[in-house]
């Protein structure tokens, strides 16, 4: 953000996926990240549900940003967010009861997901509708991507399957592979998150080093 020129719309969208990924960079929304990333389907449904709430709330917050008095802005944001969370809570069981049962209490808890209130307060309340929607979409997809990263590892090691309980279910390793039950349990969430954080920080460091090397090379 130190750039002299304003970021383009594409940048607003892309930053959520990588540079400012809500889970891997900002470490927000840890509660659903650790709790419902034990299978790919759970991760995907949670990610998409949160993305929907995020995009809709940010559009509305951005539309109303000039009408909401500063003193009641947080209360208003919470009402808006809670509305869309309740919408999701009705829509998911209408689409699939199985997904609804798997996500359990975590659908209702999207309301307190820091990513959503964070984007409403930090971005949507200061920017136009199109920019806010793109920012929210990027952040939401970044969150979904992070959940999927955890979900793939945890399901493959913990159940030896991917997309279990769906028509696309398949076995990852040989059927004689003994699943690591710990990966599906909460400790597995922490272990996997730690491993991914290590990996992403390592990549970031490497890219930073190569770019600064290039700058020095050009400068001399």
């Amino acid at each position, binding site marked *: *953000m130190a750039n*002299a*020129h*304003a*970021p383009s719309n594409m940048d607003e969208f892309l930053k959520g996926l990588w540079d400012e990924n809500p889970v891997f960079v900002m470490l927000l929304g840890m509660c659903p990240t650790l709790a419902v990333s*034990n299978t790919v389907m759970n991760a995907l449904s949670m990610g998409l549900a949160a993305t929907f709430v995020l995009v809709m709330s940010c559009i509305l917050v951005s539309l*109303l940003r*000039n*009408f*909401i*008095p*500063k*003193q*009641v*802005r947080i*209360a*208003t944001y919470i*009402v*808006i967010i*809670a*509305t869309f969370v*309740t*919408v999701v809570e*009705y*829509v998911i*069981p*209408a*689409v*699939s*009861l199985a997904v609804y*049962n798997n996500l*359990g209490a975590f659908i209702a808890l999207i309301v307190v997901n820091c990513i959503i209130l964070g984007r409403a307060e930090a971005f949507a*309340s*200061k*920017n*136009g509708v199109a*920019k806010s929607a793109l920012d929210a979409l990027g952040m939401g997809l970044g969150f979904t991507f992070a959940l999927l990263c955890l979900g793939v590892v945890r399901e493959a090691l*913990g*159940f030896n399957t991917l997309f279990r309980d769906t028509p696309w279910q398949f076995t990852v390793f040989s059927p004689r592979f003994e*699943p690591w*039950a710990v990966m*599906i*349990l909460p400790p597995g969430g922490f272990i996997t998150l730690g491993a991914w954080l290590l990996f992403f920080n390592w990549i970031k460091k490497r890219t930073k080093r190569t770019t600064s090397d290039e700058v020095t090379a050009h400068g001399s």
Partner: protein
Amino acid sequence: MNTVAETPLVPARRPASSFQMILTLSVVSTLSGLLLVFVYQATLPRIEANRRAALEQAVFEVLPGAETRATFVAGPDGFTPAEADAGNAGDVVYAGYDADGALVGVAVGAAGQGYQDVIKVLFGYSPERQCIIGFKVLESKETPGLGDRIGKDPEFLANFDGLDAKLDAAGTALAHNIVLVKGGDKSKGEIDGITGATISSTAVAAMLNRQCQEMIPYIMSHVDGLQKGGA
């Protein structure tokens, strides 16, 4: 250049009056309420249809061989046919019939405290064979990978294919309790538990025993009321 990002949180203007704040919150809440009513009305039929389909499928799963089903309410004077899933008071059972209309068995619900939360199950009972012929977990929040195997583990589920639940000579209670036993013999009403899920397996055995002790003497003495077309 575009400096939108640098403008302060709320543009400088005089502080909002209480009226303005109340108005904003009222308008937003009203809109929110309207949207929720609309979504609730739009999704309700689908949600109810899904719930019904899940229960229907469960009834046929616990009564292998059943082709049609009927709902009955257990009253003081025997079974009375009921409207399907109308939220009836009292104990509801589902009778399943094969293609010829003969009674295959009765699906009965049971519930009990598990490791995390209440476990709800549906089991099928065959009055003819006097044993449990099917079992399905309807609702459970047991630990994934350990406790939730009560609904998925094939070896555990095999316990319920012909789990003996005979009545004693007086016909008022089971001849033997349904219990959890390591390496249990299902012809004596014994369930072989799951290693690593002792609490969940014990909970299943306990809830089945409680429900069977109560319902099976009743089912056996009123079984005529369950035949197709009623008694």
